[in-house]
């Protein structure tokens, strides 16, 4: 059937099961927006393309599908870059569609022209500038396949305006059924024998393990050994002792230290995690991405396969290896007046089922340490890139994907980066509670600088956050102490819509 490239693009979104797209229109995506308006796909207009990118990412993290985000050429496309890099670092499948100037103008530095495929080359799994209307259908289908296949990640398809306007042949096609990568016959026995020879094995679940919660639980139950996660793996198992690494739980780090074999599932051993492993521990590394095996930490045995298939194959070959990791006290938190980090542990009392989103900074560490997450898709945090300004967009996307309530824990530094998305949250009527940890400083950096160097990290001219939130149409309350926070949480849990609780936090409050 003949149709314009723009119409075909929207048809392909529909055939791929896309019900929601996030985006921001502009001259070079007008044709695509015209076709979108004529379709049944819901479009969420954000306040900036950056918010749209994070929302599409959060949509995918919470809902499990592929996020889709549309932006125009030039500044629209460059505003996506941080969101694309965030999705790339955390392996989130998102299809980014950008418009570009007509082909005849490509390369002439025309108005709102930018080489977005060049810019995003190192932060996408794959990208493409579509050269003819005939290439468009295949390119978009390839984009969806690559975003989901193996280790997921973001892809970008750049469509010049005249390609979207041009005619192409569209014939419907079912989305490709992807076969998860099966383990090789030789990998499984050698991994199993290493596990069998160990006395104190431990399972380290990363972000990749969250795709296989059932298989992970069966394996853990069979092996009957301790389980810890990485920060990206939080939520992988309800039996986790906590997350490991520099900012992790002391109990989890101690357990990892005491183990004689680590069975790592779907983790890339970021520099925040890798340090204790250096030539110390014996490692069985399970990862779908072969390039991660041996990249940061050498493995004694490895299984290059989908987590679910690898764990399923290993489970019958291992026998119980129960042992008790040492008990250690968690680090103390030094709360100097105001709301304490630990008070975040009361969030679950009022929001037992809510998604939890964070930005980046001290508050992020507090949130992941004190708010329990038992659900593989329940935590939206920018682990790899550490993107301040991620949380609000991601929370909106997560709410829209799942219909669930969300709690965003943010700081006054991060919140100022993308608070414009309050408008999106209010307009889309999501149920979102923002806990703004306001310490009037960029806490994490503040702590790393010496006394005389800290002026730059002090946030001196701040808006009145309560009135600001109200002006967006949100409800807003102040919490000056732990007990006040609890009362506010209770009120917030009984109030629908977008709510902000400004938590006054002492500037020197941190986890020791």
């Amino acid at each position: 059937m003949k149709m314009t490239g723009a119409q075909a693009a929207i048809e392909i979104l529909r055939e791929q099961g896309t019900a929601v797209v996030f985006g921001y229109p502009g001259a070079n995506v007008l044709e695509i927006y015209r076709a979108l308006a004529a379709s049944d796909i819901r479009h969420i207009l954000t306040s900036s393309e950056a918010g749209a990118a994070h929302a599409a990412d959060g949509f995918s993290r919470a809902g499990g599908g592929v996020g889709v985000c549309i932006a125009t050429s030039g500044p629209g496309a460059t505003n996506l870059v941080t969101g694309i890099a965030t999705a790339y670092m955390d392996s989130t499948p998102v299809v980014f569609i950008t418009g570009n100037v007509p082909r005849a103008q490509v390369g002439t530095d025309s108005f709102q022209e930018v080489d977005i495929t060049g810019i995003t080359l190192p932060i996408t799994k794959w990208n493409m500038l579509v050269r003819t209307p005939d290439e468009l259908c295949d390119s978009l289908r390839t984009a969806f396949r690559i975003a989901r296949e193996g280790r997921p990640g973001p892809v970008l398809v750049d469509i010049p305006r005249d390609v979207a306007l041009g005619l192409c042949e569209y014939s419907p096609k079912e989305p490709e059924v992807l076969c998860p990568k099966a383990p090789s016959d030789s990998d499984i026995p050698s991994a199993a024998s290493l596990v069998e020879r160990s006395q104190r094995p431990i399972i380290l679940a990363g972000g990749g393990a969250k795709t296989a919660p059932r298989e992970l639980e069966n394996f853990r139950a069979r092996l009957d050994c301790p389980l810890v996660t990485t920060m990206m793996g939080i939520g992988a198992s309800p039996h986790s002792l906590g997350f490991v690494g520099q900012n992790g739980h002391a109990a989890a780090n101690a357990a990892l230290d005491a183990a004689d074999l680590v069975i790592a599932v779907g983790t890339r051993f970021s520099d925040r995690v890798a340090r204790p492993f250096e030539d110390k521990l014996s490692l069985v590394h399970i990862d779908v991405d072969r390039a991660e095996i041996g990249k940061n930490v050498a493995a004694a045995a490895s299984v290059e396969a989908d987590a679910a298939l690898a764990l399923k194959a290993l489970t019958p070959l291992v026998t119980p290896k129960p042992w008790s990791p040492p008990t250690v006290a968690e680090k103390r938190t030094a709360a100097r007046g105001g709301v304490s980090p630990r008070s975040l542990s009361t969030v679950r009392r009022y929001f037992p089922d809510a998604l939890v989103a964070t930005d980046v900074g001290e508050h992020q560490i507090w949130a992941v340490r004190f708010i329990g997450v038992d659900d593989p898709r329940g935590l939206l945090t920018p682990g790899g890139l550490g993107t301040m300004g991620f949380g609000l967009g991601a929370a909106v996307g997560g709410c829209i994907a799942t219909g669930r309530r969300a709690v965003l824990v943010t700081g006054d530094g991060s919140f100022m980066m993308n608070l414009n998305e309050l408008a999106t949250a209010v307009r889309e009527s999501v149920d979102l509670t923002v806990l703004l940890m306001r310490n009037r400083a960029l806490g994490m950096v503040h702590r790393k600088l010496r006394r005389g160097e800290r002026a730059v990290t002090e946030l001196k001219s701040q808006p009145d956050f309560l009135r600001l939130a109200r002006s967006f149409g949100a409800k807003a309350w102040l919490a000056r102490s732990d007990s006040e926070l609890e009362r506010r949480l209770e009120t917030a849990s009984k109030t629908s819509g977008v709510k902000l609780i400004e938590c006054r936090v002492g500037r020197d409050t941190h986890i020791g």
Partner: protein
Amino acid sequence: MENIKERTLSVLVDNSAGVLTRISGLFSRRGYNIKSLAVGETEREGVSRMTVIVSCDDRALSQIVAQLQKQECVRRVRVLENANQISRELLLIKVSTNAQNRTQVIEIANIFRARVIDASPGSLTLELTGEADKSAALFEMLGEFGILESTRTGAVAVERGSGTIYDE
């Protein structure tokens, strides 16, 4: 870092836009320096072959191979063993000559089996095919006459014997 040596990789790639940037960018942003790179079409339509020489240790080599294999545009990667490969590069070298020393330059060219492909009253241009050390040796021999300019390709390489990059 141990066992650092030169490694030759043969990479079959789709002959499409942006592939060279994608592959060379992959090397540079992961911190691997390309010593030599050559790309050309193959006997198969739509398929190009890259020969990349990098200096690295065993661990980096397996990481490079794994990163290459992840690329959508990469069809096959093969590491050619140094002892089991034939490699050639092409050198064009323009030497300053005059009536007195022209025959001397031609004699040196003959020793190296280089061919004279252009001549002028003040210069001779030679073409040499061979392994990298042969080019280096010719450079050394011609230095005293004055090298006006030179250019060389990256090396291309294949496995010895009947084995090919297409073998499983």
